[in-house]
């Protein structure tokens, strides 16, 4: 590793998501598709990416709300499985994710004679998240200090720096690693696939990658910054 003397400190930011109901309700899969076409794009983000913020500890049955609803509430496991495999992290543009979800439901409905609907389960409530950023006041300058703070930080900070920071003009983990001269670590974090994990699992992976990077930096490793 080549430590960058000018690397800025990493400022940990945590967050809290306030969930809001949008008043859009789907009782069958066709209604789900129709609402998906019209609903504000932030709601798609809520039911896919912000899903992680609501599942700190345990992932649900499927890794997005649309898949979970189809499988658990409608009891259509085929659509549940097909929606589950639409990976939101394959899409840099949420509109393309919207299109993929709609196309998946559309294709499913053209191959079955009825429109599955909830009978015993709950309808789908479209929602959104208002994200409140929380500066933690914890700033670090070295990878060792970063690792120590990450281990005890509220896990919502992991969500913030992995999924929200870049679009909000803040530091993402990988950008800071890059600035620190930890290029390989930055690349590993970029390649981390969050979709089938939860935030605690992602934190554990980040700690593991940081430990491995520090081990490979020895013996000429640097002292802790903060």
């Amino acid at each position, binding site marked *: 590793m080549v430590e960058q003397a000018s690397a800025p400190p990493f400022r940990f930011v945590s967050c809290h998501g*306030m969930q809001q109901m949008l008043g859009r309700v789907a009782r069958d899969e066709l209604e789900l598709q129709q609402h998906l076409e019209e609903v504000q794009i932030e709601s798609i983000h809520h039911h896919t990416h912000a899903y992680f913020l609501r599942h700190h500890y345990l992932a649900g049955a499927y890794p997005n709300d649309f898949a979970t609803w189809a499988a*658990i509430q409608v009891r259509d496991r085929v659509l549940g499985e097909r929606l589950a495999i639409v990976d939101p992290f394959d899409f840099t543009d949420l509109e393309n994710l919207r299109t993929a979800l709609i196309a998946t439901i559309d294709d499913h409905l053209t191959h079955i004679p009825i429109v599955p609907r909830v009978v015993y*389960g709950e309808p789908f409530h479209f929602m959104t998240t*208002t994200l*409140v950023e929380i500066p933690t006041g914890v700033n670090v300058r070295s990878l060792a200090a970063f690792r120590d703070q990450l281990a005890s930080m*509220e896990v919502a900070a992991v969500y913030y720096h992995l999924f929200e920071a870049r679009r909000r003009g803040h530091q993402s983990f990988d950008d800071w690693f890059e600035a620190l001269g930890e290029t390989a670590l930055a690349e590993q974090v970029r390649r981390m696939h969050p979709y089938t994990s939860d935030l605690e699992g992602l934190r554990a992976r980040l700690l593991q990658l940081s430990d491995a990077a520090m081990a490979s930096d020895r013996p000429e490793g640097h002292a802790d910054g903060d």
Partner: protein
Amino acid sequence: MATEPESLDRYRAVAPAGAVETLYRASERVKGKRFTDVNSTRLGGGVAEMLQRLVPLLRDLGIESRWEVIQGDEEFFRVTKSFHNALQGQPEAITPQMLEHYVETNRRNAAQLDLSGDLVMIHDPQPAALVEHRTNGAWLWRCHIDASHPQRSVWSFLRPLISRYDGAIFSLPRFAQRLQIPQYLVYPSIDPLSDKNRDLAPEEVDAILERLRIPRDKPILLQVSRFDRFKDPLGVCQAYRLVKKHDDCRLVLAGGGAADDPEGPKVLAEVMEAAQGDPDLHVLVLPDNANIEINALQRAATIIFQKSTREGFGLTVAEGMWKGKPVIGGFAGGITVQIVFGTTGYTVNSAEGAAFRARYLLTNPAVAKRMGEDAREYVRHNFLITRHLADLVALLTIHTTNAVRAG
């Protein structure tokens, strides 16, 4: 007797890692802001119990938290009880005189109460009309009841009032209404340091079970809830009998009756009859304040049921999960958001389903143990009072500062 409210720092030991520190950080932006709660009683009921704990903790965060209580005569509370029932879908005859008395009582209270605050949170329908007299600050209406299918006439009266708020808060998405104001989702929470949930020494559990005359010789299946048809205690008895054919166990049904539920004694009598002649089926009628007893029963249980067929949020599920027990719950209301199927427990749709899952857990104690551990962690992250406080601080930030950007 209610325990004294705890200081926020004591929650560090039970909240998720870093949560209390983040709460202190989050509240820096709203330090000194005035947060006023208004409800209809200082004692009794879930809302008062919740405010008794939340108000001091908000003060620990440097927020000027106050709690006002609306006053009214018997007629006023008869009217608001009718509102309450009608919002929950029961047919109620509401006359124009009743509405007039409701509005007038709210008007008189508005003149007497200190309704100032940067954020004023009005709980449930009783004080909802105070909004007509709002002067400053943001006003939010917190609805704690299942208002998913309200009687139209009552909702038509309340809707214009609710529309004057800056936002409404519901406990489940399906409780939300068609409104033009923001509708937030805030799950209720349990207090891990209260008598009902705090850690108990094994000797305390043993002593309480002995006092309640529940032997510890075989696995205990437990349901804690009012003797109410929607909690399906007879379905639980049926499930227990199916389990007992193969696995020896006890069933404990513990709860009280709601004073305002005329059906309660009838349901209790049916349960007593079902229990007759079975020394392993225990029916405990407990007083409202039997918190430590409920805590001990939950800790002594092997599996906890909450086999409701209709439910508000059903916080007894989170209470049971917090004790590290797998919970088998009915597929109803908030039970479905508390139980992650197959991971923290099971949701079921029949007595047979409850029996099947209970048998599986009794014959696979290692699975039950891991499920219980996951259940406790799930509650730690989602249903503790510290998360509830974070929601309130976030609402205060959203409505009283310009720190929150869209998106």
